[in-house]
């Protein structure tokens, strides 16, 4: 059974964030990267709790090294005939493509005999289904297979502490012409096939060989114990089976003492990458590991530059997905990383920026597709504070500024200190393309989990010059709207008919009921100076709330005026004005009251209907006022004929 699941966008390390993934073997098939890791699990009851425990394999794929798809389980211990049941020893695998088939090599504990054997499972596709061969490969006694498809036309299999042998063309057996040697193992002597490529090289506890070919050189890369824990080292040769010359380190010991490391190296779209593992999600138990990626570079002489593990890893992160700043590229002094939940480490991390001026950066964030957008940050603080997202450097251009108000005073004081909050803020400057982001602390300590950018929904645009028509359902979408008049009301239940007649009957500005406003015109209402805007709504309903949010300080406790011109080629009799509004509203056609919607209204299409009206030939002025306390103000307006059909043979203008 194939189970597809996309893992949340993660550019950073570890790359798989919902399960352990050790010994990551990456391969490029069909222009995609396929990842065949071993699958560490927490040992079930009855298994050794402090040892490696692996019962099956999953395969993952990605086209950008950022978003990975889990194609589910491909091989499991109790469905391989030669594997000892419940041995939980499905260690580091490999997968190669040859002669139209995918060959998946994996070590495990055989049912017969001790030690480890290596088996192969075969599939037509890199995701499987893989059919295991009934017997392991004869002549291999060991772990960690790796298959090299050399330019000499042969396939070579490496395993264990660096032993290599040629494979037959069928990829399931060792070639008959491999050298053999007698090896002493304690006081036992046994015949081993192939050659030990690391025989005279630094090789203490060497394992996990990974061989590849580049620019006429063969590289044998491998973990071994230099001092106390494993490093990744490499050797070079002109021949697949050596002799190899030791060249140095690819990666030094893990700083936290994680004993193992195990890796693979691929070139994908022109860039070399090192896949390796670390116990990031299992800090107290280095037998549960997770795959990570870094870029890898060669020197001109073919030697490899040492790679440092990072949190940031590789890949370009989309600004529209969560950017996990705790997986930072760089950070100022004093920045600390901690698990969000030490009991469930897969929840990830947070970064704590201790004081004003501290910062943390995250490279390669793609802003493509964003224009009128806002920032959302998942942050936490213990005092009211602020932060800024900048481009390129800690002093770079300001993209957005967030305020963390965790304590408020007044009648209903709140204390949200120590609680994670989503803080939103408009984007002041929109970066182009791929940039590096800096999260900068502007006050008391700030904790950040992630930051994300979203486009604002488009609710309206400036009215165009050409006459508008009603939409398919007859809704009138072109309106001149006045910025909201402050009219504080903590509830909408006060909107009785007499309250509204009073509120709508009052003259707020000159010519309120008579003159036709002009786009951009300003009027004075007590201390407020308010502007008229000619708008074309993107929706059947005009979202006054969003208009207020953009144009005004006040979004609740407001009164809106809206005007539009209905032009008719002929007189249209017996039509009704159909309105839905949030909250109460009142409407006038050509100076005559047409409709009052009172009470705590919701915007419901055709909620209220005027008596039968006549739209006269030529210009008709439709005027409305909408009042709102709390809630999302909006309205929808159309004319309906005697048969209940929308009136559409009209044009709508703002001048």
């Amino acid at each position, binding site marked *: 059974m194939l189970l597809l699941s996309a893992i949340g966008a993660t550019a950073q390390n570890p790359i798989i964030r919902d399960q352990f993934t050790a010994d990551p073997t990456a391969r490029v098939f069909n222009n995609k990267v396929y990842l065949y890791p071993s699958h560490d699990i927490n040992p079930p009851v009855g298994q050794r709790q402090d040892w490696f425990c692996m019962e099956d394999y999953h395969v993952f794929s990605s086209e950008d090294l950022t978003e990975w798809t889990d194609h589910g389980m491909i091989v499991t211990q109790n469905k391989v005939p030669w594997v000892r049941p419940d041995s939980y020893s499905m260690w580091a695998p490999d997968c190669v493509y040859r002669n139209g088939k995918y060959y998946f090599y994996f070590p495990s504990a055989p049912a017969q005999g001790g030690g480890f054997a290596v088996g192969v499972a075969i599939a037509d596709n890199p995701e499987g289904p893989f059919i295991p061969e009934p017997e392991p490969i004869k002549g291999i006694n060991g772990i960690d297979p790796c298959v090299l498809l050399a330019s000499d036309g042969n396939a070579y299999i490496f395993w264990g502490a660096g032993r290599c042998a040629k494979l037959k063309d069928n990829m399931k057996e060792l070639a008959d012409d491999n050298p053999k040697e007698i090896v002493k193992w304690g006081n036992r002597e046994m015949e081993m096939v192939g050659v030990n490529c690391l025989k005279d090289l630094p090789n203490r506890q060497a394992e996990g060989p990974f061989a590849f070919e580049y620019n006429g050189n063969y590289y044998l890369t491998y973990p071994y114990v230099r001092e106390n824990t494993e490093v990744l080292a490499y050797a070079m040769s002109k021949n697949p089976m050596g002799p190899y010359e030791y060249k140095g380190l690819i990666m030094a010991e893990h700083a936290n003492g994680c004993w193992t490391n195990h890796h693979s190296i691929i070139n994908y779209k022109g860039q070399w990458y090192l896949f390796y593992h670390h116990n990031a999600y299992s800090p107290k138990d280095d037998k549960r590991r997770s795959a990570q990626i870094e870029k890898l570079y060669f020197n001109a002489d073919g030697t490899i530059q040492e790679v440092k593990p990072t949190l940031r890893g590789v890949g370009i992160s989309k600004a529209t997905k969560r950017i996990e700043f705790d997986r930072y590229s760089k950070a100022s002094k004093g920045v600390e990383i901690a698990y969000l939940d030490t009991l469930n480490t897969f929840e990830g991390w947070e970064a704590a920026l201790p004081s004003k001026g501290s910062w943390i950066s995250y490279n390669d964030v793609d802003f493509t597709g964003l224009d009128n957008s806002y920032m959302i940050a998942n942050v936490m603080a213990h005092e009211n504070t602020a932060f800024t997202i900048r481009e390129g450097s800690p002093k770079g251009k300001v993209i957005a500024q967030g305020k963390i108000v965790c304590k408020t005073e007044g009648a209903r004081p709140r204390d949200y200190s120590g609680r994670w909050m989503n803080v*939103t803020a408009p984007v002041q400057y929109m970066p182009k393309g791929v940039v590096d982001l800096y999260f900068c602390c502007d006050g008391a300590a700030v904790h950040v989990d992630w930051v994300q950018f979203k486009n604002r929904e488009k609710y309206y645009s400036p009215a165009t010059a050409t006459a508008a028509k009603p939409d398919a359902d007859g809704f009138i979408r072109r309106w001149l709207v006045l910025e909201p008049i402050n009219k504080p009301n903590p509830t909408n239940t006060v909107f009785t008919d007499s309250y509204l007649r009073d509120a709508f009957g009052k003259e707020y500005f000159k010519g309120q009921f008579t003159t036709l406003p002009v786009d951009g015109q300003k009027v004075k209402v007590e201390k407020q100076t308010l502007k008229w805007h000619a708008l074309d709504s993107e929706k059947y309903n005009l979202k006054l709330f969003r208009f207020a949010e953009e144009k005004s300080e006040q979004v609740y406790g407001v009164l809106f005026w809206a005007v539009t011109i209905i032009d008719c080629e002929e007189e249209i009799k017996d039509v009704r004005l159909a309105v839905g509004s949030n909250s109460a509203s009142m409407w006038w056609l050509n100076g005559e009251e047409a409709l009052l919607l009172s009470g705590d209204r919701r915007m419901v299409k055709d909620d209220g209907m005027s008596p039968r009206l006549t739209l006269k030939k030529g210009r008709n002025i439709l005027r409305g006022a909408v009042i709102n306390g709390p*809630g*999302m103000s909006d309205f929808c307006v159309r004319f309906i004929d005697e048969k209940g059909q929308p009136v559409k043979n009209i044009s709508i203008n703002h001048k």
Partner: protein
Amino acid sequence: MKNLRNILSAATMLMALSSQAQVGQPYIHDPSTLAECDGKYYTFGTGSGGLISEDGWSWKGGAVRPGGGAAPDVLKIGDRYLVIYGATGGGLGGGHNGRILTMWNETLDPNSPKFKYTDAIEVAASDGLEDNDAIDPGLLLDPTTGRLWASYGTYFGNIRLIELDPKTGKRVAGNEPLDIAIDCEATDLIYRDGWYYLLGTHGTCCDGVNSTYNIVVGRSRQVTGPYIDNVGRDMFHGGGKMVIAAGDRVCGPGHFGRTVIDEGVEIMSCHYEADFEQGGRSVLGIRPLLWKNDWPVAGDRFKEGTYEIESERRGYALELAVDFVRMKQERQAWFRQEQNTPIKPVPNQTLEEVIDTWPKGDIPARIGDYMFRPHQKWTITAVPEAGGYLSNPYFKIVIEGTNRALAATDKTEVTTVPEFTGADEQLWRIEQLTDGTFRIMPKAIPGRKGINTKFVLYSAGDSTPTLAEYDFNSDNSKWNFRNH
């Protein structure tokens, strides 16, 4: 004497009619769909905690749900309970950044050793600036596909639909939220006979006796909508057909939940913003759920009173098997009628006129032509001390003006006994069915163990009542209460 009795019975009626909501301490806002666990009923509300009931009628606090937040829902999936709820993300001053979370529990009984919630998982969120407020979730496990859906949102923007994994309670990978309604809140989804229904709460919340909260519905052939009302209006355009509004001294019903008790026996749960009888507090309400032309509508709570009990089978009336006492009438042959004689109304036959003709002991019940005679008029009153079930308290059914009570017999038949004693076989469970008729069920049948939930008053023949197993597909199981 007669007048005194009338006054007394009117007073009893007023008292007994007092509560339209459940009894006990049913104080709650936004109750989740009722869940049954080990024979008890549970519902969770806004804030923490919730209510527990042994019988469905009397409720008290004590249910436990951590996480606080608004308007949860609960659903039994397999042998576990999935709880979904909304939590605000910490926005201040009316912020709209909400989070929808799910968690599991093997039991809802906080005293059970197995009672332990899994860690809550976020399945949806709103960022405070978008047209959505991620609180008020409702769950639907689609019986046709096994897929799990949740609707959520408030007046702040749109109601959204997401898909969850019924095995994990997590959001299905790659699932994008769908906008399905506007201007409502505390939504719930249900499925019935090929239709998906979206129930939303409209009107004013949280204003006590002035709250206009009401529940409306739209329906769709697809779970993804569009949800259309009875005049063809999309709920995304504010459409919705009324399911329940104010009345009977309760107002502001909100947060719908449907429970199917039996075939054709359904109830809806909600809260009333204010129960006028309980000081205007927000309380749990349970009402029969009726289906008319494939639209759900709340039935009224059964009202005490004096009724004809009419069989749905023939339209005959349940009566005492006594002699029909003819009434006297001055009659003239039609050819001798004097046109100018004043017309005098004929008085009803009274109990006093006939009661002495009735036997003193048990009188069997019968079904016959309704002639609004004393032996056909049944006074139905609640017996509060006898407890209840989801829809009502138990009732006694006596001949008007007497204590002669309808009772089940040890032969699984019905009779009447001269004096109501409060015995279980004289207590009746009355439930309105989805088609508007009623089933009438004795609390116990002598000789049968436990509370009866199977045998109902049944038309064995047009004229013969009995007790038999309830069958929604037979009119023999159904009765109407008519006051005429």
